[in-house]
């Protein structure tokens, strides 16, 4: 990336939203790896250590116990294809600082889109109002915390031209049309994101992160004898431009065509309770909905989760190990450091069938008097950090997928999903199955489609009676919503048998 900004503009090869701030760091960046020197981040946001300390002092001025500042600069670019042409582009630039003050478990929060000392001090004073006593804050000092490095990239999206991205989006359209004569429409989207963040708190911790993200998605619509069906395939990673390859285009095109083709033969199963075999990969949505959300410690701290009294108790068969992991390389759910400045980690939620850890933010880890788990995440500087999942998955069991299917008299096998939801307190969770198969007498028979499956978290967890050794992470565009905030996550699972869930269908 030794082409200057000016050259980009001259060649017109500009990443639309890439260069809006023109920070010194970006102008001088000739290296692939992001510098570990915190100064480049201070320069990026045009702040000094002195200003950070003054703003934190203002935030603590009403007697707060703790304050933090979260600066963020995010640029996103989206290229879209419809009716055979890459004929639309969208971009967004978002920039600002969120200022949070804690008093016990109480939160004061304000943000500013302008990073002048005056604007930041104003926001700090607003957030300070959560407390109302004399301040004994003496200043928190300054200690740089070097974040981990789970998503090193070769080429930053900010430095990639629209021109260089277009051919990949075009190719996927052409390939999908060439794979099957039934294809009547293709939509494809390439979304890339580059986010810089800088964090400083009243304990003096100063840290930073650079978070790249890319999602490549394709929708295929087919028509056969008047019947229209559509499906969707996507891959998403914390990777740079090197993510886009001919192999990826081929993989996505094949996948979406296969997924759409199945639907023409698919039926709806008989409605009711039955065994469900969850195929390896995207079936991790089961963990995310049935267990993950209900393990988030804010709900448990308030007693509103169905797992509120279950810490240290046996909640699953002994072979069940469930993990929430922020350290998988290039994974969409990974973070080098969480949004409260804490190390991310691989956290065992369930170990040998026993509930081992909740998913913590700062407030809840203080409440439970445990070490932070690095799950304090926020959608942007406009939001407060709360306990959120990262990549949630289960470790391998010892069976094979074939063994598991063989065990089912009548049930369903599911491996392609679109969305899910959970009621934290009641424990009822759902996931929507785009496609799968009926299982009859131990064999996969007819395809099924478009059915919702519903279960109860603790029961479903206890009902995982077999697991295969074919674990896979699903690298789709999973987005998790909670309290009005969306964050990217992933999930994974080996093939498992859930003894009984309620399957939508016809009676």
């Amino acid at each position, binding site marked *: 990336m030794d082409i200057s900004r000016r050259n980009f*503009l001259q060649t*017109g*090869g*500009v990443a*639309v*939203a890439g*260069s*809006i*701030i*023109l920070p010194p760091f970006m102008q001088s960046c000739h290296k692939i790896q992001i510098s570990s020197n915190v100064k480049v981040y201070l320069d990026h946001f045009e702040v000094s250590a002195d200003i950070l300390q003054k703003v934190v002092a203002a935030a603590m001025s009403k007697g707060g116990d703790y304050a933090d500042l979260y600066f963020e600069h995010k640029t996103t670019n989206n*290229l879209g294809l419809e009716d055979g*042409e890459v*004929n*639309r582009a969208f*971009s*967004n*630039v*978002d920039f*600002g600082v969120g200022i949070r003050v804690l008093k016990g*478990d109480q939160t*004061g*929060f*304000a943000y500013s*889109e302008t990073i002048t000392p005056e604007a930041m001090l104003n926001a700090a004073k607003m*957030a300070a*109002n*959560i407390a109302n006593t004399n301040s004994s804050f003496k200043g928190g000092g300054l200690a740089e915390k070097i974040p981990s490095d789970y998503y090193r990239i070769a080429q930053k999206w900010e430095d990639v031209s*629209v*021109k260089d991205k*277009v051919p990949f989006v075009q190719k996927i359209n052409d390939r999908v049309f060439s794979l099957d004569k039934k294809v009547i429409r293709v*939509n494809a989207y390439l979304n890339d994101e580059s986010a810089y963040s800088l964090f400083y708190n009243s304990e003096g911790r100063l840290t930073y992160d650079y978070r790249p993200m890319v999602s490549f998605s394709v929708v295929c*619509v087919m028509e056969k004898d008047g019947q*229209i*069906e*559509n499906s969707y395939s996507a891959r998403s990673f914390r990777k740079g431009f090197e993510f886009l390859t001919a192999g990826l285009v081929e993989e996505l095109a094949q996948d979406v065509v296969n997924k759409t083709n199945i639907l023409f033969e698919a039926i709806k199963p008989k409605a*009711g*309770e039955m065994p469900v075999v969850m195929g390896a990969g995207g079936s991790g949505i089961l963990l995310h909905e049935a267990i993950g959300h209900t393990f988030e410690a804010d709900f448990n701290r308030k007693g509103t*989760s*169905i797992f509120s*009294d279950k810490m240290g108790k046996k909640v699953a068969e002994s072979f069940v190990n469930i993990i929430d992991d922020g350290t998988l390389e290039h994974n969409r759910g990974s973070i080098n450091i969480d949004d409260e400045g804490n190390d991310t980690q691989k956290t065992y939620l369930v170990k040998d069938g026993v509930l081992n850890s909740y998913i913590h933010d700062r407030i809840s880890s203080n409440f439970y008097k445990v070490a932070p788990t690095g799950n304090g995440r926020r959608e942007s500087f406009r939001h*407060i950090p709360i306990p959120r999942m990262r990549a949630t998955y289960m470790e391998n069991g010892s069976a094979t997928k074939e063994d598991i299917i063989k065990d089912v008299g009548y049930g369903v096998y599911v491996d392609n999903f679109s*969305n899910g*939801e*959970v*009621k*934290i*307190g*009641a424990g*009822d969770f*759902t*996931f*929507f199955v785009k496609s799968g198969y009926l299982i009859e007498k131990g064999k996969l028979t007819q395809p099924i489609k*478009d*059915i*919702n499956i*519903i*279960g109860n978290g603790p029961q479903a967890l206890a009902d995982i009676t077999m697991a295969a050794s074919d674990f896979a992470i699903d690298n789709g565009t999973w987005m998790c919503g909670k309290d009005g905030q969306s964050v990217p996550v992933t999930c994974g699972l080996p093939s498992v048998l859930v003894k009984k869930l*309620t399957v*939508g269908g016809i*009676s």
Partner: protein
Amino acid sequence: MTKEEKYTLAKWAMEQALKSGAQQVGVSISNDKSSSVDVRGQKIEKLEQAVQSNLSISLYVDNKFSAHSTNRLNKKELGHFIAEAVEATKYLSEDKFRTLPDPSLYYKGGGVELEMLDSGYENIEPQTKINLAFNAESEALGKDKRIVSVTSSYYDGMDSIVMVTSNGFKGDTASSYYSLYVSVSVKDEDARPSAGWNESAIFFNKLKTTGIGLTALKKALGKLGQEKVPSAKMPMIVENRSVGKILGPLISALNGSSVHQKNSFLINKLGKKVASGKLTLVDDPFIVSGRGSRLFDREGLASKKRAVFEEGILKNYFIDTYYGKKLEMEPTSGSTSNLVFKPGEESLDGLVASLGKGILVTGFNGGNCNGSTGDFSYGIEGFLIEKGKLTRAVSGMNITGNMKQLWMDLAEVGSDARDDSAWRTPSLLFNNVDFSGS
């Protein structure tokens, strides 16, 4: 930013884009304010305050199109941003259907006063907001020994937008919003079912501030003992506040983009009967203080009152300028304003009393609808109805079917349309719904 400042900046941005090589440009600038108070256990849990601004620009360059937004509004950066955006647009493929709207369709002023903005927004004391949240919580807190948690939230917001286009549109809107919400969780052996209730208003002095905590508590206690009932085909009543979940796919199927991209189960159905004769639905943008009211839409097109369904016959799609050109149809508007049902005679209680057996759905849990085919499956909770009475709380069940058939099976429309939402949904009764349970 004042309205005039926003107009000045919007016009400046538009001129920058034209100078950089765009032939047509649309710019909108928004800024909004909000504040919120969350209370739990008669203690403030969270205080938040926010002010934000955004500029969005649509560029039409050599028959190519792109759209961009930023919250960095200083002119030096904006000028650079816009010039780069125009350059980048040139690398896209041509799209002859992309133009600004026909100027003759723009709103040109002189519309009715829709009363969407509380001019006293800035004058409400923070302590008043805090007190409202405390009082709402205290209605429920400690009122039943099964309560495990009560939280309340006060929220207010105000946003204002100006819009200009290079072919002559100029318009601005401003609106305010206040809400008060209480959520109650109760203990039911291991489960802790929760329910919430909220009230909202455009004007502070119209915000209902009492009864919210009590209603939330009543609804949470109503969920005690929820269980599945056996799978069966039964009539289903959907409570007015939950109807949006099943109305959504029907409206989405009328969207120009869905129709053109074959992601609709209502293609080529204009003038045809696609739903029960009980379904008469109007898109009415002119309701005073209606949540979806507007004099012009996102493109600047002048609003019109339009029939969507008349006795089950499809009368209009939602078509914007772009898909109008692609589909060779007149643009209506790409989005809904206020959706108004022709009401029936019966209240929700009356609908329930009319059934020998069925299920009243009071909430959905996940699920989805296939846009191309209309096949749907959703998780539900609510109550079993036997001999006209609610007899058991149910949950953990799914409904599964096809939207085309579901709306043909609409048997009754309630008289209880809500007025606190742009989609003014009443409770609806459908026949022959497949429920999966135990």
